[in-house]
């Protein structure tokens, strides 16, 4: 019988600790596939965040280091400067990247560090139990904005991808919603492109993924996908925010 689906070699035979229906499950698998289908694996060094994805090193058979909460892109800078021909990528939640690590993210992008960031936006702090994140949308309920986020009280959400896409050191930013097999393929394609651009030395690249957190959203996995489509994409519309290679010459 022909095998049509199997475990990527780079996924270690460990059971994911993620909740059922969580986007992190899919993302880890796709990363393994992309690394496996290319010669990226032997150059790859991953920086795992503090957040639900902190245990990435248990799942991916590549070189992985942890970083203090939010500091992934600073750590990535150190690695890339030490080994310029390595393929360096960070994997960060929205709390990690847009809140505590906003400074490191902005400046690594500003410098145009030749590293790639996978930015997993689930509009809350998953690991610590569903508190408000900078990405939490207006009216969204979390454990620290139980009446729903209000602009008056909690302030406005932050769209980091949009900010980063405006920087000249950033070569590629794309946002995908992880809601269907077709969209998973979009993420895969985007990741391949980002790695390719990094290899070509074009600058900082980032893929934002709108990713489910059924546990803290208190929705079923299926309803979580719907919520991304119907609610999240309104605030965070998917698409290519910048691709400087495709639009050589002009920037937007």
């Amino acid at each position, binding site marked *: 019988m022909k095998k049509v689906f199997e475990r990527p070699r780079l996924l270690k035979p460990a059971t994911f600790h993620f909740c059922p229906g969580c986007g992190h499950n899919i993302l880890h698998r796709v990363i393994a596939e992309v690394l496996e289908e290319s010669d990226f694996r*032997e*150059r790859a*060094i991953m*920086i795992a965040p503090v957040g639900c994805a902190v245990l990435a090193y248990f799942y991916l058979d590549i*070189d992985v280091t942890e970083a*203090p909460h939010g500091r992934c892109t600073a750590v990535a800078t150190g690695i890339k*400067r*030490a080994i310029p021909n390595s393929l360096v990528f960070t994997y960060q939640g929205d709390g990690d990247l847009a809140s505590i690590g906003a*400074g490191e993210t902005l400046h690594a992008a500003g410098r145009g560090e030749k590293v790639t960031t996978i930015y997993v936006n689930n509009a809350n702090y998953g690991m610590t139990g569903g508190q408000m994140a900078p990405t939490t949308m207006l009216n969204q309920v979390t454990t620290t904005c139980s009446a729903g986020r209000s602009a008056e009280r909690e302030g406005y959400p932050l769209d980091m991808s949009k900010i980063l896409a405006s920087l000249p050191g950033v070569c590629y930013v794309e946002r995908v919603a992880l809601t269907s097999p077709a969209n998973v393929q979009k993420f895969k394609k985007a990741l391949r492109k980002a790695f390719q651009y990094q290899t070509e030395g074009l600058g900082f690249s980032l893929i934002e993924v709108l990713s489910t957190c059924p546990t803290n959203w208190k929705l079923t996995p299926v309803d979580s996908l719907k919520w991304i489509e119907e609610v999240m994409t309104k605030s965070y519309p998917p698409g290519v925010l910048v691709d400087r290679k495709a639009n050589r010459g002009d920037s937007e």
Partner: protein
Amino acid sequence: MKSSANKVLLSGNHAVAEAAIRAGCHLYFGYPITPQNEIPEYMSEHLPKIKGGAFVQAESELAAINMVLGAAATGRRVMTTSSSPGISLMQEGISYLAALELPCVIANMVRGGPGLGNIATAQSDYFQSTRGGGHGDYRTITLAPCTVQEIYDLTQLGFYLADKYRGPVIIQGEGLLGQMVEPVELKEPDKKDLPPKDWALTGAKDRPGRMLRSLILEEGILEEHNWKLNRKYLEIEKKEKRFESFRMEDANLAVVAYGSVARIAKGAIKRVREEGLKVGMIRPISLWPFPGEAIRKAAEKVSQFLVIELSCGQMIEDVRLALAGKAEVNFYGRPGGGVIPNPAEFGRVISRNYYQKVRKAR
């Protein structure tokens, strides 16, 4: 660099940088802060000319120490330098470096605090460096030079010890030492018998992936990890204590001082010895591990100790712990940050102590 024979004239800050470069540290990440800006300036000029060298001016000390963490994870030699407020900001990263067992050298050209304090020299970061500084049960080797030559030598030793024991090493410089200009012999670094870096992240080519992690959730394993770190610290305590003994052969009173203060105290001791006072000094060179035995041993002959610091009294706690009541410990200190004591001042304090304590006891 001005050179004559095998010696060159260097400031303390430039000596840190030159020693690091000659020790094979070609990666530097830092954020400007006075009184150590000459170090990043020197590095920014020299490192880009070296193959594989890189200098990054980080956006903060928080970023700088994490860039150091990343570079150290690849197994290459790396350093950052700063001064007190910047070192405070690095404590989170230093805790992670200790937990992940990543080698690097961090020089603190200490200035006056707390808070923003000022840019003048001080010794008020002793606790921060010798007690861990960040969260968790860890220690950092802390080396305290007192001449520009020693800054050079200890910086190179720092890289050696960092690699040998896999962890961050702190050079406890001082603002004053950084600015001082003295002849320095540019020695070659020791690289003997260092363990292979078989943990380094270099890309998993023809081998399984490697991981560096400090999050340890499995039952009982964090305790195991901490015991492992502790065994390493005990080994360091056994092997890496360093101190200088000065005129202790017939001393009745022992000064204990480190860094710039020890140097000034040396001048004071020479003066009071001309007047016939039998005074010596023990100068800790490694602040952690603290050379407590040397002090305890001295107490077999000396019953009076005088600790002098450019702080309101921090190292004195280690001296007291070492002596465990075996001798009397007195203290003279002034908060740093604007005060540079001179040998005459220390001489008066030493004489007063001598006449009040030693002579009276007879």
